């Protein structure tokens, strides 16, 4: 110790290393979204209550659109091989840019649904979350016009986390992004204006199970750190490619890490939270969560599998085969037994997660682009589905029980028609985006030698098509109940969100080539 000190005294101090500011051009979209979220928090602190809603809506929509424009601007001269930002912790490559664009477009629609105040006077969110459900004050606030406008900054924080999550180039960044996207969602789940007990229960379940899953992710991270000496994805890949280090650490770490990721993507058998949370959360939040979380989670799964673990795919691929099969079967079979339309869509999302996983374990360029395209199509279809679900209401709020949907076509042919189209898209009928998405994913899986899996996936989608068609039959060929729900005429925001999603679903079904080209723009940057 003393010699070191003496040496240090003898020699002149080494020159201070020059720290260069990281180039920010590539990550402006994330900075805009997170910056606007911080401004939104300040709005909550300083604006009077009646000004908050308009200010927050304008700020949130501007932030999402601004980030989208910035992304489009960056795309004009983005390097094709991708680049690293923030000292290598973020990889801004073509898949990441595609996912950012998808997330921004989806969250634009979701923010419109969240901001809507025409369907439910005052909005779908509780006026004061701190009031106990069931008390006199609580009954008074059902008709109050205000809402907890904190939802908007929370949405932006979650969106920022999702964008970081799907471009994270090391596991620590990925973990932080996972928490940044999850924590706001836990809170947003518990803020429904009506049926607050269900909403709070959904929040508790989502929180406890989500925290449990992120602990698994984190332990996986720690074991992989012990294995590779670094949490950078490319370092893990290099360590796994050819060393004599402990395989136990690698595979235990990888298994725990993947469990955490599969939970977020609600892939069965890690889907148990999905139906409860989708049903209990306010419908606009469910739309946001179902569309955007799925995109972000599969973005993360794709990156981890393709960048960090490609060399060891021989060992883990059969396990994920099994997981994909279980997920498709759980989603399709349990979806058959559901009587609540939100739960039915939740099980449908579990089945879709299985299809997405089929694409994700085809470790080819084609598998990557097909999965990215499927995420785009699935996100918009789900957004439209929950948008329509929020319109069918009775005196106690949304009428989500399937028996209440009987004969809906006689009450409102337009809404029934739109919902039919969405269900056909979820089932994967030609001329909808769902068909093209399934087609490209199964094609990529076949090309990568997974024919048995594709056969199972086809059977599962046939089973799932049955419960979508059951709802269509119920809407068109049953007599409406006398005291059945009414269809609310939506205001501009919800109309815009549903129209946008339906148009995208139709467009990607008829002319998918341009989006397929975007999705096939490039591969992950491995550095």
């Amino acid at each position, binding site marked *: 110790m003393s010699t070191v000190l003496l040496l240090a005294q003898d020699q002149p101090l080494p020159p201070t290393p020059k720290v260069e500011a990281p180039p920010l051009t590539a990550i402006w979209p994330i900075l805009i979204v997170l910056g606007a979220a911080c401004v939104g928090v300040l709005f909550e602190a300083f604006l009077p209550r009646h000004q908050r809603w308009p200010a927050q809506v304008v700020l949130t929509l501007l932030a999402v659109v601004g980030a989208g424009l910035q992304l489009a601007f960056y795309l004009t001269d983005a390097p094709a091989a991708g680049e690293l930002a923030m000292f290598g912790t973020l990889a801004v490559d073509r898949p990441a840019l595609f996912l950012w664009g998808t997330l921004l477009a989806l969250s634009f629609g979701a923010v419109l649904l969240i901001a809507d105040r025409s369907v439910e006077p005052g909005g779908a969110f509780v006026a004061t979350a701190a009031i106990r459900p069931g008390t006199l004050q609580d009954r008074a606030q059902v008709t109050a016009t205000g809402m907890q406008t904190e939802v908007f900054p929370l949405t932006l924080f979650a969106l920022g986390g999702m964008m970081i999550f799907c471009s994270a180039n090391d596991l620590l960044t990925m973990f932080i992004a996972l928490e940044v996207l999850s924590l706001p969602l836990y809170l947003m789940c*518990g803020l429904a204006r009506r049926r607050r007990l269900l909403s709070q229960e959904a929040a*508790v379940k989502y929180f406890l199970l989500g925290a449990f899953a992120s*602990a698994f992710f984190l332990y996986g991270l*720690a074991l992989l750190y012990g294995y590779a000496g670094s949490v950078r994805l490319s370092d893990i890949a290099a360590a796994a490619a050819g060393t004599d280090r402990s395989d136990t650490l690698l595979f235990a770490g990888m298994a725990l890490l993947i469990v955490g990721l599969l939970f977020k993507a609600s892939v069965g058998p890690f889907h148990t939270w999905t139906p409860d949370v989708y049903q209990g959360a306010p419908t606009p939040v469910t739309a946001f969560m179902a569309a955007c979380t799925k995109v972000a989670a599969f973005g993360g799964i794709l990156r981890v599998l393709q960048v960090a673990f490609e060399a060891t795919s021989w060992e883990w691929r059969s396990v994920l085969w099994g997981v994909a099969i279980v997920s498709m079967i759980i989603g399709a079979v349990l979806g058959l037994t559901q009587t609540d339309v939100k739960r039915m869509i939740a099980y449908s999302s579990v089945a879709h997660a299985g299809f997405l996983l089929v694409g994700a374990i085809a470790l080819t360029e084609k598998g990557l682009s097909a999965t990215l395209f499927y995420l785009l199509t699935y996100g918009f279809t789900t957004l439209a589905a929950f948008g329509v679900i929020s319109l069918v209401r009775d005196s106690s709020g949304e009428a989500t029980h399937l028996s209440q949907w009987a004969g809906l076509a006689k009450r409102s042919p337009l809404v029934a028609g739109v919902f039919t189209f969405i269900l056909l898209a979820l089932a994967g009928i030609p001329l909808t985006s769902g068909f093209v998405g399934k087609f490209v994913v199964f094609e990529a899986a076949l090309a990568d030698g997974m024919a048995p899996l594709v056969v199972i996936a086809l059977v599962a989608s046939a089973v799932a098509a049955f419960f979508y068609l059951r709802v269509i039959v119920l809407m068109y060929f049953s007599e409406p109940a006398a005291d059945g729900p009414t269809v609310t005429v939506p205001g501009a925001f919800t109309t815009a969100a549903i129209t946008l999603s339906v148009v995208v679903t139709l467009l990607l079904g008829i002319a998918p080539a341009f989006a397929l080209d975007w999705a096939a723009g490039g591969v992950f940057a491995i550095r």
Partner: protein
Amino acid sequence: MTPTYYLLLSALLFTIGAVGVLVRRNAIVVFMCIELMLNAVNLTLVTFARINGDLSGQVMAFFVMVVAAAEVVVGLAIIMSIFRTRRTASVDDSNLLKY
């Protein structure tokens, strides 16, 4: 003393936490078990930092602590809100959402 013992200890703590999440009934205790799992991870990270001779594991432990603190804020708020309504924090009583 070899660092391997610390790895075994942290694996044991993680398992105790995971089992606790599965068998305990009180939401607060379940949450404490999750915190135990996170702290077991911290011990693993620090031990691997020692084994690998690399400081980044120790820094990661700080990140985990910050995230755990943020999680406490959100989690206790949610558990509080459900406790004030139902006068119980038992996860078995939260059974309105099923099938």
